[in-house]
């Protein structure tokens, strides 16, 4: 364990000192003097406190943790000062957000799965590790002989720090070629459009240096990937007097911090972006040099926005033409230290690809690509060693040359990818997928939920690693009890952080022993590999030893890194494209995607332009529209207290979420349907009522939260509750019950999440 230790025979409850050495000694002298009463009982017990480092994995951001461990138990958590993810940068204090602060509640959760389970005679029963590993190996062998490895779907989920062992076993050795990941549940329309236009799949703003930030369907102050993001926005406001514009039909905490909240008519973001482009070109505020030297398709873009005046967009978006002009000019004048950044609010739309393309185009137009305070094409700027290569172990690629199904029902299947999350159940029905291996993910909360439940029942082999009984683990044949992040070593490099021009690495050892019969991931995959005859690929004793080997590349030992928590490793300059061009098919920033063959094919099928364009919802490909029967538009989202991890399993996070919306005095700890009081009044719904949300396809029930902060005509809830979730009581409504196979964005195949619904008050008590 890293960090400082202090042992004393005095009081259990005393001011604990983070620093070791002299400071600790001073504190000890003053500590034991005056405590009386109840404390006397604790005074006799010997305590042993240490602080060690960890890396929070609740939202996969790896914020550095400082963990207080007493007698082998983690008792308190905070952030690591100066940490690239957990702080605003060098010399700044590290913190943990509400989700991170609740992590002890995950590790020591009374509902945790702490033993392996196997299904016998239709029922899951606990088993020893030896029995479960042997059984898994046998079932995997049988499955491969009978169906072939290509019929085992890797739905990878969230292995700690994206460690390589899950893929090593199931992709490289077992040879399962098909993986469905986050591009089709979270960010495809945003990230595919960006990758094809600008060449890097997941750009992120250089928040703290920005002077004009447009958070566009992007709730950066709540749904961040590391606290460096909201901290960076606050720094930009304080240090650069930056303007923050929040475009969202919902009043988020980003709206609260923003200079301007624009509660746009949902799904019209693309029209707003085109009108802004129109103004910027008309006012000659665009970056002519960047456009002429580095871009492709500007003429097509210019033509596309020629008649898209602010007045035209005002009609569509419900945003005043004057405001559109103001933000377009403000954004362009602040460039290149300006950023318009879309996220799931855009990616969840059936017309989201084009809307995202239109927004990305604005960043190219004003030349803020990879610029200080603009978008940043983050990279670590260094590599790590390959421990297998160093040992002369040749890792096979058994997933190659495996037959995979080719589908052509949807446009994306004909040009971009054969399988998306929503289409997995159909592949199971067709017999193309017959098994599934998963690590800490819960696909039935990500789209086409009822079909996924059936598919999981139908599959012949379901193996999962998890900590809670979810819609997957309850249906699994083999459940391995996953160790939480506090019980495992961790290593990750990056990338996006508060260090704008630096690459970094962060790591930590297990802070505590695994709970119950849980095992760290490395031990789990090593045991499985050994049982399947692949022990030679797991020669290391522990994950820490593997990481130690990787770190040779930068001259660090894992012990040293864990002691420090993080290390700044490399310099990563701005405007990396100036050295060798953009990482796109033509080396340019593409306004027009005619050069991207896959997209050109989709566009032709859909009858849309390859250049930026306004594509309204159309009841066919681009989103269902509301009508008299289903007059409200429903979607889902996150809030700070609830991420895509296992927050719904954590009582502290559920409490914070209930407090956030003022319902903590109710027994109910499910999600809320946020509805404008005007819409509620028209339906006789009062705050805290139990309501049914019905679409043309299905229905869910949950508690109503009346809120002036949501746009009339638009309703929504936090995602990840209800049936199949990690919530101990399945409380609330699983928003994705309303989502069916056809609700996909046509270019990327991502689950689209805008559903026309009606809401009615129902009797009875919340579950």
């Amino acid at each position, binding site marked *: 364990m890293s960090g400082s230790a202090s042992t004393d025979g005095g009081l259990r*409850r*005393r*001011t*604990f*000192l*983070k*620093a070791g050495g002299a400071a*600790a000694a*001073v*504190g000890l002298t*003053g*500590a034991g003097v*005056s*405590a*009386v*009463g*109840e*404390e006397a009982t604790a005074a006799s017990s010997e305590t042993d406190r240490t602080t060690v480092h960890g890396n929070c994995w609740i939202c996969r951001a790896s914020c550095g943790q400082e963990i207080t461990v007493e007698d082998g138990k983690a*008792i*308190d*958590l*905070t*952030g690591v000062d100066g940490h690239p993810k957990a702080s605003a940068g060098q010399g700044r204090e590290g*913190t*943990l*957000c*509400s989700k*991170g*602060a*609740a992590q002890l*509640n995950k590790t020591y959760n009374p509902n945790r799965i702490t033993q392996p389970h196997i299904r016998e005679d239709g029922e899951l029963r606990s088993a020893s590790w030896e029995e479960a590993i042997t059984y898994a190996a046998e079932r995997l062998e049988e499955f491969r002989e009978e169906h072939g490895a290509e019929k085992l779907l890797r739905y990878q989920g969230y292995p700690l720090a994206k460690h390589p062992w899950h893929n090593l076993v199931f992709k490289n050795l077992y040879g399962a070629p098909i993986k469905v990941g986050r591009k089709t549940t979270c960010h495809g329309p945003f990230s595919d459009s960006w990758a094809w236009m600008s060449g890097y799949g997941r750009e992120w703003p250089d928040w703290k240096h920005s002077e004009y930030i447009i958070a566009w369907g992007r709730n950066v102050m*709540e749904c961040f990937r590391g*606290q460096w993001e*909201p*901290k960076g926005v*606050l720094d930009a406001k304080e240090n650069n007097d930056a303007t923050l514009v929040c475009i969202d039909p919902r*009043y988020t*905490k980003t709206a*609260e*911090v923003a200079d301007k*909240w624009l*509660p746009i008519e949902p799904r019209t973001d693309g029209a707003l972006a085109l009108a802004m482009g129109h103004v910027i070109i008309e006012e000659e505020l665009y970056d002519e040099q960047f456009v002429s030297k580095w871009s492709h398709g500007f003429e097509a873009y210019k033509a596309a926005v020629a008649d898209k005046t602010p007045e035209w967009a005002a009609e569509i978006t419900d945003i005043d033409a004057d405001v559109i002009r103001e933000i377009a000019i403000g954004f362009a004048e602040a460039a290149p230290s300006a950023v318009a950044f879309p996220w799931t609010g855009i990616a969840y739309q059936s017309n989201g690809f084009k809307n995202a393309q239109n927004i990305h185009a604005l960043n190219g137009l004003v030349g803020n690509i990879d610029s200080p305070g603009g978008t940043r094409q983050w990279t670590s700027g260094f590599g790590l060693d390959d421990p297998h290569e160093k040992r002369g172990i040749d890792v096979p690629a058994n997933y190659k040359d495996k037959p995979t199904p080719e589908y052509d029902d949807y446009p994306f299947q004909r040009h971009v990818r054969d399988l998306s999350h929503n289409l997995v159940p159909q592949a199971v029905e067709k017999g193309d997928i017959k098994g599934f291996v998963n690590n800490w993910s819960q696909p039935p909360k990500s789209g086409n939920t009822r079909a996924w439940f059936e598919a999981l029942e139908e599959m012949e082999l379901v193996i999962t690693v998890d900590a809670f009984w979810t819609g997957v683990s309850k249906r699994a044949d083999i459940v391995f009890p996953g160790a939480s992040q506090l019980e495992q070593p961790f290593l990750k490099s990056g990338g996006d952080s508060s260090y704008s021009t630096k690459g970094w690495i962060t790591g930590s050892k297990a802070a505590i022993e695994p709970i119950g019969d849980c095992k760290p991931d490395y031990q789990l995959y090593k045991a499985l590999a050994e049982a399947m005859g692949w022990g030679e690929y797991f020669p290391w004793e522990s994950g820490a030893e593997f990481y130690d080997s990787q770190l040779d590349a930068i001259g660090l030992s894992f012990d040293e890194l864990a002691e420090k928590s993080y290390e700044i490793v490399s310099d990563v300059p701005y405007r990396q494209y100036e050295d060798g061009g953009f990482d796109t098919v033509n080396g340019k920033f593409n306004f027009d995607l005619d050069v991207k063959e896959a997209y050109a094919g989709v566009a032709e099928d859909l009858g849309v332009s390859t250049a930026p364009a306004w594509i309204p919802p159309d009841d066919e490909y681009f989103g269902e529209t509301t009508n008299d029967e289903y007059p409200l538009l429903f979607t889902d989202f996150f809030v*700070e207290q609830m991420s895509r991890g296992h927050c719904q399993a954590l*009582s*502290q996070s*559920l*409490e*914070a979420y209930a*407090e*956030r*919306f*003022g319902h*903590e005095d109710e027994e109910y700890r499910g999600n809320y349907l946020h509805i*404008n*009081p*005007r819409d509620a009044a028209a339906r006789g719904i009062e705050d805290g009522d139990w309501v049914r949300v019905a679409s043309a396809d299905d229905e869910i029930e949950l508690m109503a939260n009346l809120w*002036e*902060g949501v*746009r*009339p005509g638009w309703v929504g809830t936090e995602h990840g509750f209800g049936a199949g979730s990690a919530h101990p009581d399945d409380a609330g409504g699983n928003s994705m019950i309303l989502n069916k196979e056809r609700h996909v964005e046509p270019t990327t195949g991502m689950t689209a999440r805008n559903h026309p619904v009606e809401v009615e008050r129902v009797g009875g008590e919340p579950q």
Partner: protein
Amino acid sequence: MTEQWGFYFDAEKCIGCHACSVSCRVRNDIDADGPKWRRVIHAENGTFPDYEQVSVSISCMHCEDPPCRTVCPTGAIEKRATDGIVVVDQDKCIGCHYCAWSCPYGAPKFDDDDKMQKCHLCLGEGAGDGHGAPPKATEADGGRKPGCVENCVGDALKAGPMDELMKEVTEGAATDGVGKGNFIFESAGSTLTIETDSD
């Protein structure tokens, strides 16, 4: 009194995340459904689209002249001479709840044992811990920040001797006057009335 400790809160920096209230419960070993020593209020104003919220994190204000102490029939509540932190001696508490009724901020809370408990600026790590604890020390003097402050993502919440905190204050910030609480509230012109949340 050598120094008076208090809180400083900047509404412009609060992102309403509840890391403070969760950290308070974690540090003090309080279950999720247990007493809430620290709360985050999402004060709202207006109707769509002219709507706004202000997030405010509040706890015990450690008043100059604590009304809870005045009404306590058993003298269980102490305004500490050393650091001005208001603490309760749970052995003396009879669970009458007068303190909760008298407090303008709803700070005193009760658990199943019916003994008053509330924020003690993390003098200890649990209910009743503040009573008899050594003087609160700053980090410079080897102390540790209260849990709420330690994990404040927006750096909106600070704790310390009031004379040090006053150095942070910008023009226009208000020190709370209602109960002469030791609480500095920074905001950009927002007016906020904190409603009592008696048990």
